[in-house]
């Protein structure tokens, strides 16, 4: 491609724009002085954008995205988060229930969506346990049980050593049947779960006293990434029994569920942002989780940069489009 004066002008203008805007944005984000490393990164990115502008090759886009994710991870840029009402609704519900309420947490996702889903489940588990509620853990997805065990091992056992299994929390585990399982649990929990995940009879646990079916639950939380997921919980349990349903899903899934909010769905965490918002609310109320409940908040750093890069990409794309159109017109 032949380089014209317009090309050089746009490259220089973009570099200037980034050098000015970049630190401003970082300062807004961190309320701190920008350090030289970031200037370096900025120059680097500018060069790549220039390269992209020259070649219009999408592999440069791939490289840009990779850098946008890796560089902030290497330099530990954290994100800044504020809790939105739709997430706050879940937090407030857990907060307002009297201690000892029954809360069901269902793990309806697999390893593929762990980055988004696991922080949600972990944060809600922390909150439910610190409030002294009874936590019933189950999975509608076969892959969910493994994730539930992960939470139990890394969060419950480590951070809540005083909580007793079977008294404060109970791992019911996975049962096949998809939405049919929810349907059956609505009628009776014992009909599906005669034992817990370890195979101990369910009635041996003091928590199960007075728990008959899903209507015995004061709140059902579901962390999901597809079908069956929150939609099925709403359809087969929430709508039928007027049980409050809330939870978190991947951002893609979230757009599908907003029509259910707020009539059929108490609140919803959408993607990493939702998880980070819940973590933020949790940290604000319970500072003891400042060091542990921060996975999603920490991930927001690379997110911010990647979003900015994509936005700039669109601008560059349009610039290329208008330049080439002008050239063709001549």
């Amino acid at each position, binding site marked *: 491609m032949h380089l014209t004066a317009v090309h050089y002008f746009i490259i220089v203008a973009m570099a200037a724009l980034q050098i000015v805007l970049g630190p401003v944005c970082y300062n807004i984000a961190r309320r701190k002085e920008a350090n030289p490393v970031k200037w370096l990164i900025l120059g680097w990115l500018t060069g790549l954008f220039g390269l992209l502008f020259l070649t219009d090759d999408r*592999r440069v886009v791939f490289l840009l995205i990779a850098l946008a994710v890796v560089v902030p991870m290497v330099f530990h840029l954290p994100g800044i988060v504020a809790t939105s009402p739709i997430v706050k609704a879940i937090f407030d519900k857990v907060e307002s229930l009297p201690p000892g309420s029954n809360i069901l947490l269902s793990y309806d996702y697999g390893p593929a969506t762990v980055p988004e889903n696991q922080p949600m489940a972990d944060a809600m588990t922390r909150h439910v346990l610190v409030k002294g509620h009874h936590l019933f853990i189950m999975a509608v997805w076969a892959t969910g049980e493994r994730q539930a065990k992960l939470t139990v091992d890394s969060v419950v056992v480590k951070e809540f050593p005083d909580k007793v299994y079977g008294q404060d929390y109970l791992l019911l585990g996975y049962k096949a049947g998809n939405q049919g399982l929810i349907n059956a649990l609505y009628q009776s929990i014992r009909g599906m779960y005669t034992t817990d995940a370890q195979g101990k009879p369910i009635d041996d646990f003091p928590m199960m006293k007075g728990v008959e079916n899903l209507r015995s639950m004061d709140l059902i939380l579901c962390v999901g990434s597809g079908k069956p997921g929150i939609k099925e919980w709403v359809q087969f349990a929430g709508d039928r029994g007027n049980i409050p349903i809330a939870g978190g899903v991947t*951002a893609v899934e979230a757009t599908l569920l907003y029509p259910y909010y707020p009539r059929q769905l108490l609140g919803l965490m959408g*993607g990493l942002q939702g998880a980070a918002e819940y973590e933020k609310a949790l940290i604000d109320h319970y500072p003891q989780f400042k060091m542990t409940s921060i996975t999603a908040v920490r*991930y927001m750093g690379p997110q911010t940069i990647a979003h900015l890069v994509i936005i700039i990409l669109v601008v560059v794309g349009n610039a290329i489009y208008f330049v080439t159109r002008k050239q063709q017109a001549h």
Partner: protein
Amino acid sequence: MAPRNFIILAIIAAVILVMLFTGAFSDFQSLKLWVGALLTLMIFSFLYKDNPFYKFAEHLFVGVSAAYWMTKGIQTTLWPNCLRPVLLDWFQGGAASVAADHLPFGVLPYGVARVIPAVFGLILLTRLIGPIGWLSRWAMAFIIGYAAGTNFTRYLQSDFVGQIYNTLLPVVNGPGAFGVFVAYAVIAAALILAYRFLIAGLQRGAGAVTTRSIFWIATVVFVLLFATKFPNLTVVTGVICGLIYFFFSVEHKGLFGWTSRIGIYMLMLAFGATFGYTVMARISLLIGRMSDLGTWLGRVF
């Protein structure tokens, strides 16, 4: 196939196998990390261009996952739900399997009800035998009938009646809303009149561009204000316009053309919003992969 590719393939296979099994047997964490990281890099390499490493990972993935799902299907469904009970019926007269799950069995004798799906399944497998392969259509017909029937009512309930129910909202609400509504209606009428008599007849020229820009900016601001002031009215109107876009029996001209165009704009806005909202999820996935790669790099260096 060039011999060079063959050598690459052999090397990959040898390295992976050695690593996987030493990793598995000795429980040596870093070797597991190596396998995961190498496979990750092989798949990412496709982003540059197709190459033998990607081909290897792709074919390995297909083989392993197809087998995994098949064994899973056999171990979790075919055997416990079908073959085992049928065999038990066969050998023990049915008593054992009845005790195993407490399904009451209505009209058909228990054993027969259990055998029917197995018969359908075997009919499906006649496909592998050429001349009577057409029998397999019976099994397909069963699944299609079941699926069509259940989907029919399910869609009617949650997506049809459910969404209509969600859309039925008081269109104008809030204190003093009617007065505001009338005011907005007057402004809307003024805008339409302005378009009809002022903008539509404008000639080219700098002044015209400015006037036109001012008009369109005013319109967009007005629409936004209106939409936020009367969200329910916006929803109802928008849904109706969207439905008109999906209307097939009428040519989209005149009033239909206008409304269906608003409908398709609504769809585009929705798509844009979903797209923008999804970016975060996709970046999250990459962050997850990169942090795994980071753990690997941390081990190595």
